[in-house]
């Protein structure tokens, strides 16, 4: 198993440290008293966590596609479950995104969360453990444990600290995600029965029969599509975003939505490449629908959080578009865009939270015409809005550019259909910006009125303080940095992406071609293997692969 890992040049199990530090922090937090102390302690832990993750970036070797900083220990021997961790170019940036966004979540909840602070910080710390774990786990069971562990803190975040309609939103979130998780579990078990291992690198690049791939892919893809979310599984997202407290929204937008797209890249593409290639056109179209649908619905929103939530549906549509193009530019673009969406949308939710703390309303109309009272805030809001509409020079433009290059190389129709999505983003973001800053009202008259009213209005809408400034300034650095100098980021991921595409293409070419629905169905039901005239060279028993598949390799090229 060692061959899957590059040598850990740091000399200590850094990934385990990163996973368990927040958990240990949560343990200590149970013993602490006082809201300020608890938040301070949590912030400290998360800050240390972020600092500890920097060595990952510095020491990451961009020239190898092997898993780095790996750890592999036996955990439950009877079931061949290992405690296996490692990161490659696909997960590196997402781990860093998580560790850097979490302290900001504490910062933006400094005033916002004032009840059940102890429970809150413990929830947040456990959340961080689970999220970091998801991106690092190389064992399916371990992955599943972290995946499920994420669900409960997030549920609590919405259900305890959420808005008026929190019960509905949290249950909806829970049910949708749980439905996905169940399918995920099915896929995991199917893979185990086929290969006898949960170790992800070993499951990759095996030659499963096409029918087996097809079903496993579908189970994976549904679970991930709910998480992304792709149309039509998106309806939990706006509800959850609107009701979640600011830190909840930020975590949701920045990290949780990336779990789905990460899953596509980590599991679907390497483990079930033939099915991925076969079904990619469908998912491309669904991505296009997500992009356009998200954009159109965002246009009509009066609630800022809903607007940004629907914009997320559109933006994540671009990410899935890039993934299912299955070419270098597309996947590079989608990984970069995952990070960008995390930065930009997270920042936008923080911005909305800042306004909410002042006006206690999420409605655009209650927060309009604040330009003259909060100039610094408006400058940040402007920058993040521009980033969200993929303005050149900001981070999202880079991601969108890569994805569009990939799309135009692959399929010009799909690419042209994605373009209106970019236009819609510009429309709703500029509309939001215009309303928040200036508002539609009679200029000069309004101006005098505002002066008369200035006492009252200005009391509510005082400009951002140093804590809020630091949060937004930190994120805006990345907006411009990735926007102008994406090379260091892209360089880290390129080898892994090239490798995963090359492997997927090779093993997909080797796999049998689609055999029609009959073959697929018999695979699922374990019925007769003689339905498929096409795959005549297949040995008998091939299609009963869910219990015997590891026995045979590739069902021969000869027939094709």
């Amino acid at each position, binding site marked *: 198993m060692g061959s899957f890992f590059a040598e850990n040049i740091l000399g200590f199990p850094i990934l385990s440290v990163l996973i368990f530090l927040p958990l240990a922090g949560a343990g200590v937090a149970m013993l602490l008293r006082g809201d300020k102390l608890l938040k301070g302690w949590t912030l400290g832990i998360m800050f240390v966590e972020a600092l500890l993750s920097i060595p990952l970036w510095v020491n990451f070797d961009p020239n190898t596609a092997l898993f780095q900083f790996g750890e592999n220990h036996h955990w439950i021997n009877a079931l061949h479950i290992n405690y296996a961790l490692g990161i490659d170019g696909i997960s590196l940036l997402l781990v860093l995104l998580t560790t850097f966004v979490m302290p900001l979540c504490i910062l933006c909840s400094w005033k916002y969360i004032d009840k059940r602070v102890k429970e809150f910080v413990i929830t947040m710390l456990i959340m961080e453990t689970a999220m970091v774990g998801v991106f690092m786990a190389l064992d399916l069971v371990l992955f599943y444990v972290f995946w499920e562990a994420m669900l409960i803190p997030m549920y609590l975040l919405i259900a305890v600290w959420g808005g008026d309609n929190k019960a509905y939103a949290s249950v909806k979130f829970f049910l949708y995600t749980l439905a996905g998780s169940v399918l995920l579990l099915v896929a995991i078990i199917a893979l185990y029965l086929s290969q006898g291992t949960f170790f992800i690198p070993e499951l990759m690049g095996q030659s499963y029969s096409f029918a087996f791939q097809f079903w496993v892919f579908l189970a994976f893809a549904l679970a991930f599509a709910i998480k992304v979310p792709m149309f039509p599984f998106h309806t939990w997202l706006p509800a959850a975003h609107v009701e979640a407290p600011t830190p909840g929204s930020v975590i949701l937008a920045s990290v949780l939505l990336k779990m789905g797209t990460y899953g596509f890249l980590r599991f679907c593409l390497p483990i079930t490449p033939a099915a991925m290639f076969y079904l990619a056109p469908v998912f491309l179209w669904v991505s296009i629908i997500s992009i356009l649908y998200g954009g159109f619905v965002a246009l009509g929103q009066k609630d800022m959080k809903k607007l940004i939530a629907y914009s997320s549906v559109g933006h994540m549509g671009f990410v899935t578009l890039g993934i299912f193009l299955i070419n270098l530019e597309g996947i590079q673009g989608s990984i970069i865009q995952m990070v960008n969406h995390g930065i930009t949308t997270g920042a936008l939710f923080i911005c909305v939270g800042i306004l909410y703390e002042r006006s206690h309303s999420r409605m655009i109309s209650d927060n309009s015409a604040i330009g003259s009272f909060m100039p610094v805030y408006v400058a940040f809001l402007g920058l993040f809005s521009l980033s969200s509409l993929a303005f*050149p020079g900001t981070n999202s433009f880079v991601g969108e550019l*890569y994805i569009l290059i990939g799309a135009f190389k692959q399929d010009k129709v799909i690419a042209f259909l994605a*373009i209106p999505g970019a*236009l819609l983003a510009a429309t709703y973001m500029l509309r939001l910006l215009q309303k928040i800053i200036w508002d539609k009202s*009679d200029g*000069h008259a309004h101006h005098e009125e505002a002066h008369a009213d200035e006492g009252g209005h200005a009391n509510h809408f005082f400009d951002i303080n140093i804590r809020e400034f630091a949060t937004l300034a930190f994120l805006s650095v990345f907006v411009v940095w990735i926007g102008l100098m994406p090379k260091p980021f892209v360089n880290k991921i390129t080898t892994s992406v090239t490798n995963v595409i090359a492997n997927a293409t090779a093993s997909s070419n080797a796999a049998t071609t689609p055999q029609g629905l009959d073959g697929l169905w018999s695979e699922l039901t374990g019925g007769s293997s003689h339905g498929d005239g096409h795959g005549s060279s297949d040995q008998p028993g091939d299609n009963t692969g869910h219990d015997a598949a590891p026995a045979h390799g590739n069902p021969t090229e000869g027939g094709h």
Partner: protein
Amino acid sequence: MNDIQTAYILIPLLLPLLTAVANLVFDKNENLRDSCSSIGAAATFLAVAYMVPHIINGGTYSLQMFELYEGINITLKVDGMSMLFALTSSFLWILATFYCVGYMRGLNEHAQTRFYVCYSATIFGAMGVAFSSTLLTLYLFYELVSIFTYPLVMHHQDDEAYDGSRKYITYLMFTSKVFLLPALVLTYVLTGTLDFAPDIVNGIFGTDPGPKWLIAAIYFMGFFGYAKAALMPLHNWLPSAMVAPTPVSALLHAVAVVKVGVFSVCRVMLYVFGIDLLERYGLGLISAYIASFTILVASMIALTKTNLKARLAYSTISQLAYIVLGVAMLTPNSITGGLIHIPNHAFSKITLFFCAGAIYVAHRKKEIAELDGIGYKMPYTMAAFGLASLSMIGAPPVAGFVSKWYLALGAMELSSIGLLVVLLVSSLLNAAYFLPIFIRAFFPKNKAAFAGGVAAIQREEASPFMVIPLCLTAVLSVLFGLYPDLWLKLIEVVK
């Protein structure tokens, strides 16, 4: 080619941005804030002018800045064509700054700091466009200009301003996202680079670029995508954007914004597609006809407008099309005529807008019908207006004549009677809508204005902050008509 790699380019590029920051810092002290503007403008102009000798000798300056992807760079380069635009806009920025001070204070406008910040930042965008050396850089700065001018158009914050600015940003965002972005990506997919070609003949597509329809599609996405050039049918934002304060209309809609548009169109035609390819595919001629259509129709619409700024707006649309027409004819003389119209039109049109603003500040008059006898109250202003009108018409010896001369030569080289007729007819139309204003100002039909005799009419010029810049630009229009050498030399380098 003598190319110098230097970070010096950053100085003229970033000075306007620094000026914007300084404007912001000195928010509270308006004298200090406004002197920052003028110092920044002057410094920018000097920094640009310093580069002229090397450029005229056929050299270039360049600076590699960021790499976004293989073959997608943000790179700056100063060549003859950049210089043409950069010199014009930085110089006019100086005059416009003084004019702004007179105008904004004369009307006691609100949110002046925001105004100045966006004004300076727009010049930053325009400089960036001038110095762009890749399609991506061009796109970046082009978009920056859109964003920074948005608050300027909205300045009055009344319903009219909101409607106008919404239309403005809708047109610009729509075209940039739906046309420019795919054109950019497709160009990259076909060629593997977004850098401009080193000369205007070959372009970057090479001899076998791909299906002809695709090249034509990319070309027209670029041709119409730079909607700031206001080619019909994507011209409608320009009249709506005239709700902005007049200094904005003057500098931005006579110089920076619209020139960013035509400059980009010309850049793309010459340095991305190249004369060879445009000729081979017959794209140049089609473009020339589209431009001719715009020239004629916009002029006719201008005839019907009774509001002074609206008439100027349509005149701008038609004049911009001259620039595109010149380049689209693809002959050496016509390209000269088109490119030289960038500075010539800038100097003359800014004079006209300055005059319109001065009339408004001094007399609160916007309609042409109200201008009876105004020449006696504002002799300097209206004299300048007359000179600038002559330039628009293309009468010797004012600047516009030089442009028309080369354009006509170009049309003859092509032996295209049609295009020649367009030039002649459009000149007549220009005369038909500009001269009545001038005549009305000095020879009013309504003699009531002279009830007390000409001598009794009080002179009521606007403040010298406004009158001096507009006289200067009028005089310069004449000078560039007599001595077009500077511009011709810069254009010689382009060819």
